[in-house]
Each structure stands twice: as structure tokens, then as C-alpha cells.
């Protein structure tokens, strides 16, 4: 019973904040809606027993990436009036609603017919240890490549965003 409550509560607010990211006109509001979305999504991950992924999601996504978005909005000192998208026409709202509802329904019916059963009901014990064991043995090569990728991204973004002399 409490599982249902937690899941539907989280799912409801995630849906609301996703729609908010897409429809609001003020970019800071959209960024905060994205923060709420990602935070609740980390809650869903923790609910399924993936503690480590949930913590990484909050630390990296909400704690760094969206803060980067906020910094860009503030540093560019964009006037909210300038940034505000033109008021979406009513047909855009309707299309958005119909598309989401339609695909969600179709998706649910399709997936329902697949008879995949319940999500595992026991939490994976000591998630961090298991993830680390696999990450550093089977996936060591992608791990090193991704760290080089991060280095390239850092150097690249600094090079692109530097003020031209």
C-alpha cells in the first residue's frame, strides 16, 4: 500500500514538473522545475534499490549540471523579458497534451501485453560495492575513455566560452 502511494506520488510530480519544464516561459522557473524533476527521479531510483545511482544523480545532475544552466542564465544577465519565449499558441498546448496522453496510453497497452511481471521486490544488497566491482572489472576500458572524454569536454568548453582577446 505504501509502495503504491510512494510511486504514484513521485510519478505525479515528475509528470507535472516535466510538463512545467516544457511549457513555462521564464527560464529560471524551467531550471527549478528540472531540479525538482531530477530530484524526484533520484527518489524513484532509490525506491528501486539503486542507492548509488540515486546519489550520483543528485550530486552530478541536480548539483552540477542544472547549476551550470543557472549560471549561464545569470552570467549572460539575460533580461527575463528578452528571454521569455513568445506565448505558445493554443494549438501547441493541445498538441502537447494529446501527444503525451496518446503515446502514454499506447505505450502502456503495448507494454501491458508483454507480460513482463513485477519489478524485483528485494533491494540489491550494498549497491555501491556491487556496482564498483563490475565497473572496475568489466567496464574498466569505458571508464577510462569516459574520463578522457570529461577532460576533453572541460578543455573544450573553456576554450569555446573564453572571451576573445
Amino acid at each position: 500500500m505504501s509502495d503504491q502511494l510512494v510511486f504514484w506520488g513521485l510519478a505525479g510530480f515528475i509528470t507535472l514538473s516535466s510538463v512545467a519544464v516544457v511549457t513555462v516561459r521564464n527560464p529560471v522557473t524551467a531550471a527549478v522545475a528540472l531540479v525538482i524533476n531530477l530530484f524526484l527521479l533520484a527518489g524513484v531510483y532509490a525506491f528501486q534499490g539503486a542507492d548509488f545511482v540515486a546519489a550520483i544523480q543528485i550530486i552530478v545532475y541536480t548539483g552540477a549540471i542544472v547549476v551550470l544552466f543557472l549560471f549561464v542564465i545569470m552570467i549572460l544577465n539575460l533580461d527575463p523579458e528578452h528571454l521569455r519565449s513568445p506565448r505558445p499558441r493554443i494549438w501547441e498546448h493541445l498538441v502537447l497534451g494529446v501527444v503525451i496522453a496518446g503515446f502514454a496510453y499506447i505505450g502502456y497497452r503495448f507494454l501491458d501485453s508483454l507480460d513482463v511481471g513485477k519489478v524485483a521486490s528485494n533491494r540489491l544488497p550494498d549497491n555501491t560495492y556491487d556496482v564498483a566491482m563490475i565497473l572496475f572489472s568489466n567496464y574498466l576500458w569505458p571508464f577510462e575513455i569516459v574520463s578522457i572524454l570529461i577532460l576533453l569536454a572541460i578543455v573544450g568548453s573553456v576554450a569555446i566560452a573564453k572571451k576573445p582577446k
Partner: protein
Amino acid sequence: MPIEYYFSLALVMFLCGVCGVLFRRNILFVLMSIELMLNAVNLVFVSGSTFLKNLDGQIMVFFVITVAACEAAVGLAMVIALFRRYGTIKSEFFRILRG
């Protein structure tokens, strides 16, 4: 919680992201919608991993989050450079590739 509920939630998030990329006229919002899509995919990976009792899904999430961070950093640097060059970030001004 049957897994199709999680997949439906991920589908809804992904569709919001797609509609955001299509309908928003401002590059910052487009980047935010792309992050939304990536998170929907992450949700599918984590749910699949919990259902199949296999941790490969969570490893994939780890890499997707990392690559999304790199992409957001480079994308935002480009937004700053564009703003400095053109004075605006409304997507209707960037039509050079438009034939």
C-alpha cells in the same frame, strides 16, 4: 510495482522532452529538454536493471550521466559564445545552415 508503470513514466518524460525540443524557440530550453530526454532513458535503464537483477543497467546510467554532463557543459559554452557573437539566443536567428 509492475515495470510497465516505470516505462510509461519514462515515456511521458521522453515525450515532454521531444515536444520541448520541437516547440521551444530558445536554445537554453532546448538544452533542458534534451536533459529531460536523457533522464527518461536513465529511468528505463534503472528499471530494467532492477527487473532483470542485473547491474549492467546501472553501469550504463553512470556513463549516460557522465556523457550528459560533458554535453551540457559544451552546449552551454556554445550558448555563451553564440550570445556574445549574435546578442540573442532565439533559435530563429540561427539560420545559416538552413539552405
